[in-house]
């Protein structure tokens, strides 16, 4: 492993990759801080820019944008009680209270340090768990893949925010959208409706940008935007020794919770930060302090969401199965770079896998260096009014799509998907499961066909092969959990903590 990590660092420390990592982290933080732009939108609108880069550099930059935006979201959560993204919604509870008590500096510093610690552990976990998992998955047949994907998709619908039935319907809709275009086996064009541009399928950028960026702009414009920056100047206040002491164990616990949740499909950073917060509140000697500026309430969720963001890469990089919408975007980017996501990646492209892993650690370090001294700048950015931002985001959406294919039809399609995304969002259907379905659709069909052909049309094979059976049982448990009232209540709570994005 030392050897591999060394390889990774030589890749990641090349001047070019270091520059892209920095660009990604800086852009990500910048966009994460800007009000009303979530990490998904950030990645969605910036990732056409990375297509011209070599694969390693483009993935390093995308990963940088992701955790940069995640980080930026915490800053806004603490300073203005406005979570830049769902995962930092919980940070608002105590972080904003700390800021109101004039302790914005320590809150930001603790959030940054906790995230950094969790990021380091997360990166180490990827390096430790990834390769054996990938090797194990090399033995997977089409049955295991089908079962694994089914588990991932059902998990994304059941465990994610919102109504589980709607989530499952969104998965089915996403799978259908993924089938548009020529069928690889027979060459039949499906759902092409005579539009030549649809014969190759609907572009990944079209779906991602339309669903997340365009639809979200309309949602934001429709709602009121009362927003005040509470803290004008952040007094440079490093946390005291007691602060650090109080925050250290919650950080460790948050990291463990986050790392576990990150690997599960569909949960991702958002649910993990919520779970970490609940855990701290439960084991605290004086739970009433929570919500009134308890430092543990900042450290634990921040550590958890960062750890989950990191470990989410494990299934995505080693199995090719994305657990969250952001990971679906990463997988999509890999496909567009001509890579085949899956267990083969580590063996065939070690420089890619280890390069990304190493760059994540470097990126986390950059964030720490970038964020603490620059907090003042980020605060000023919060004052940018949304009426300047949204036309610029629309520009990135339109131009980004056009730059992929040089075809205006993709821009029209993206606008259409935006309308669909808006309608679905209004009807409280979460877009993330749809995106996962869209990414996995062709793959699932391919493996299903192969599995059924090899088994001579006998579906019982899914239940006689042990690994496949295990995935199937897990899927059944997930569906059972959907009916369990306890999780329902938790999800409802989880849905509520304030306005998101």
């Amino acid at each position: 492993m030392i050897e591999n990590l060394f390889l990774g660092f030589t890749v990641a420390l090349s001047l070019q990759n270091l520059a892209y990592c920095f660009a990604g982290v800086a852009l990500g933080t910048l966009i994460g801080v800007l009000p009303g732009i979530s990490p998904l939108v950030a990645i969605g609108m910036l990732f056409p820019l990375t297509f011209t880069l070599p694969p390693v550099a483009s993935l390093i930059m995308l990963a940088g944008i992701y955790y940069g935006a995640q980080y930026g979201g915490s800053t806004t959560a603490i300073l203005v009680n406005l979570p830049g993204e769902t995962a930092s919604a919980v940070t608002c509870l105590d972080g904003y209270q700390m800021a109101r008590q004039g302790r914005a500096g320590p809150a930001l510093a603790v959030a940054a340090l906790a995230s950094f610690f969790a990021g380091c552990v997360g990166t180490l976990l990827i390096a430790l768990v990834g390769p054996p998992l990938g090797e194990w998955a090399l033995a997977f047949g089409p049955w295991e893949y089908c079962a694994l994907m089914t588990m991932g998709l059902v998990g994304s619908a059941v465990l994610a925010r919102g109504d589980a039935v709607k989530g499952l319907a969104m998965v089915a809709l996403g799978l259908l959208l993924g089938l548009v275009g020529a069928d690889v086996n027979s060459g039949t064009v499906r759902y092409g409706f005579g539009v030549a541009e649809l014969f190759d399928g609907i572009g990944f950028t079209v779906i991602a940008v339309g669903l997340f960026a365009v639809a979200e702009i309309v949602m934001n414009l429709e709602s009121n935007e009362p927003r005040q920056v509470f803290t004008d100047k952040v007094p440079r206040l490093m946390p005291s020794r007691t602060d650090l002491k109080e925050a250290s164990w919650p950080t460790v616990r948050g990291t463990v919770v986050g790392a576990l949740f990150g690997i599960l499909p569909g949960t991702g950073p958002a649910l993990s930060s919520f779970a970490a917060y609940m855990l701290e509140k439960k084991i605290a000697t004086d739970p009433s302090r929570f919500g009134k500026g308890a430092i543990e309430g900042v450290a634990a969720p921040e550590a958890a969401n960062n750890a989950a963001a990191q470990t989410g890469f494990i299934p995505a990089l080693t199995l090719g199965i994305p657990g969250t919408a952001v990971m679906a975007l990463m997988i999509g980017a890999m496909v567009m770079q001509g890579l085949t996501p899956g267990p083969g990646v580590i063996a065939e492209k070690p420089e890619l896998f280890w390069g990304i892993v190493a760059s994540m650690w470097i990126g986390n370090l950059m964030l720490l260096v970038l964020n603490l001294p620059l907090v003042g700048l980020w605060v000023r950015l919060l004052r940018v009014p949304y009426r300047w931002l949204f036309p610029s985001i629309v520009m990135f959406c339109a131009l980004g799509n056009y730059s992929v294919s040089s075809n205006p039809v993709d821009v029209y399609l993206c606008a259409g998907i935006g309308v669909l995304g808006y309608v679905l969002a209004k009807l409280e259907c979460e877009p993330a499961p749809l995106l996962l379905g869209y990414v996995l659709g062709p793959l699932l069909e391919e493996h299903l066909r192969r599995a059924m052909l090899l088994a001579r049309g006998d579906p019982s094979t899914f239940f006689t092969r042990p690994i496949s059976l295990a995935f199937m049982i897990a899927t059944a448990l997930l569906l059972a959990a959907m009916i369990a009232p306890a999780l329902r209540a938790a999800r409802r709570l989880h849905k509520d903590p304030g306005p998101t994005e």
Partner: protein
Amino acid sequence: MKPNLLGSKDFLAGLLFLAIGAGAMVVARGYHFGTAMRMGSGYFPTMLGGILAAFGLFLVLRGIKTKEKAALTWGWKPLAFITVSMVLFGFLMTRLGLVPALVALFFAAALGGREFRFGEVLALTAAMTAFAVGVFIYVLKLPYQLFPGIYFL
């Protein structure tokens, strides 16, 4: 008061899923179905369409049963202007070039916002167009025309 089904999110979402699922199944009838062992191009889409329609039906029934009364409001104005701004961009890009397309996009999009201040939009358009030209034409070197017939300045 009779329940307002057009305000029920479950009902409307269900209806949408039901329509898309059923539509997908009907269209898939035109593709070769095959058998479970040798699936044709219509097998998987038909299956998915059926699943989608079934979830849709469930949601429709749930929507009728819960009798939601809260009215659902739609942001027609931003939706229309944002959509139009993207369509205008695509339409003008190939015909008149990047700069006119972006000017149209910014003004159309800004009209969808809460307030429209002409001077601000003009300044924003100028700044972002300059930025876009810099990034896409000079850094990424994409072969787009800026104005009709003009590729480089």
